[in-house]
């Protein structure tokens, strides 16, 4: 079977805490909360479903605490979801839930099939080994065992992400935030992942550096046709990168559709507020 999607997410949810019968009533956009008033559990996200098509970019937008990052962390297998399943076309031809993968399979998925760029570059990079070494870690994970090959590939990736070649053997702890972010992108790209997950990639960067990083991501979209999920609370970023957008609030998807449609004709009051506050 050849699946039309590269990533399918079905009913994904994550609860912190033991949960109770009232959780679903006490949380969500209607309740205006993501923590249950009865048992104190936090429902970071519930019932998130979507298909990601080849070469497509899906935006997830929402306020801080709306569960966007939890969705990405679950998909990247950093967190164990409480509910739901996810399928990658590259994993058992999309027939097996990635959350049932064994530890070695998980490592393979994280190293070669998916890439997650964290909001904080320190989470995705080891700041105390060289930029090249960070990229090498990815390549070594898929059993590249030649220094020359590693340096070729790292050099290429750093060139693509506009990190000066002579900084390849410096440690990222000495880099600016924007440059760390670009090194992280290079690392994430190392094994040509089929799905790229970008978490608040430009947040905290100054505007000119933001523009550079966004240009880079667009280039990757156009030239390599990598499918991406872009999480941001910045509608400008979403507008620029994403063809389709989901709006999240209090752990649930409140609106989704083509990005233009969502931004031009927002239906949900929260989306309306979000769009209104942009101008």
């Amino acid at each position, binding site marked *: 079977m050849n699946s039309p999607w590269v990533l399918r997410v079905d009913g994904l949810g994550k609860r912190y805490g033991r949960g109770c019968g009232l959780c679903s009533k006490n949380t969500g956009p209607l309740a205006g909360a993501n923590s249950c008033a009865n048992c104190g559990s936090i429902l970071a996200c519930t019932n998130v479903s979507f298909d990601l098509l080849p070469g497509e970019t899906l935006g997830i937008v929402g306020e801080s605490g709306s569960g966007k990052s939890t969705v990405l962390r679950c998909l990247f297998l950093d967190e164990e979801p409480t509910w739901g399943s996810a399928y990658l076309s590259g994993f058992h031809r999309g027939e097996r839930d990635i959350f049932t993968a064994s*530890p*070695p399979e998980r*490592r393979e998925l994280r190293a070669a099939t998916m890439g997650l760029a964290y909001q904080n570059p320190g989470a995705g990079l080891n700041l105390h*080994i*060289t930029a*090249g*070494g960070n990229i*090498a*870690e990815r390549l*070594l*994970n898929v059993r590249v*065992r*030649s*220094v*020359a090959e*590693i340096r070729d590939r790292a050099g290429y990736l750093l060139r693509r992400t506009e990190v000066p070649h002579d900084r390849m*053997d410096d440690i990222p702890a000495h880099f600016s935030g924007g440059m760390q972010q670009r090194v992280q992108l290079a690392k994430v790209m190392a094994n040509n992942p089929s799905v790229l997950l970008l978490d608040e990639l430009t947040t905290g960067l100054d505007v000119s550096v933001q523009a550079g990083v966004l240009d880079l991501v667009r280039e990757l979209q156009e030239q390599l046709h990598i499918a991406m999920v872009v999480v941001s609370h910045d509608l400008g970023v979403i507008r620029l990168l994403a063809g389709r957008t989901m709006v999240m609030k209090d752990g649930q998807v409140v609106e989704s559709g083509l990005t233009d449609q969502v931004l031009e004709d927002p239906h949900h009051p929260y989306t309306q507020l979000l769009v209104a506050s942009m101008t």
Partner: protein
Amino acid sequence: MSSVATLVAQNVTPGRGAYNFGFLDETTKREVRRALLKAVALPGHQIPFGSREMPVARGWGTGGIQVTLSILGPDDTVKVIDQGADEGVNAWNIRRLVTDTSGVPTTTDSREATIIQTRHRIPETPLRDGQVLVFQVPMPEPLRMVEPSERKTRAMHAQADYSRAWVYLYEDVVRRGEISHATGYPVMVAGRYLLSPSPIPRWDVPKLNMADGLYLFGAGREKRVYAIPPHTEVVPIDFEDYPFYVESFPDRKCQKCGAEAVYMNEVVLDDGRHAFTCSDSGYCDSRLTGGVE
């Protein structure tokens, strides 16, 4: 009678003075031997054991001593070396502890020994079938240099997730233009576990591969034992374009016995000149007295 009392009553080979044969009590020896059996069954895997207080400080070979004393029998002959030398202070003290509490004979000739306890060297003469080499190990965890958390290194071993050990070598190549890791060079054992062979020089690492003898490793402070059974494949990790290599001593000859192509110590003579001698003193001696090529 309790099992402990039974063991004490059955102890027909008394040590000297008030000590049990081989200093350790029989239940301790059995526990260490159980851990060693497990270690041999899982080549390269670190097995925890209840490391005892010994009459030397931890860090002075207590792991090796406990392994040696636990496998020691009245018919054994023991050799103890420190950096290749039988005359080192550490070697002397350990040898005295073994003989004082067990009465077994000792030797400096590695061919005559059944058990050789070593700190940081493997004898030049290859082990033969039936011989056991016991290493004193300060740092059993080969991944400690890349991962400080024990919980995480255990998970890495469980999943054979060793890419970060290679990252460490890559960083070495980038900084120094070569793999400079000199002692305790990490090796893959039987294609499964990454192992630290204790701080032996690279020179000795190839001797671990497909050996005829048994290698046992004891880390007293870290409370771990592990093993490389005879005829086990042991491969140092490296890169295709930066392969593992051993130290070379071009044109060097031992000042005492004239040996070449052995691991050498550099010594400064009284007149300030430098000379080289065999690091393995027992090997050097037996060359001088004849009998070894």
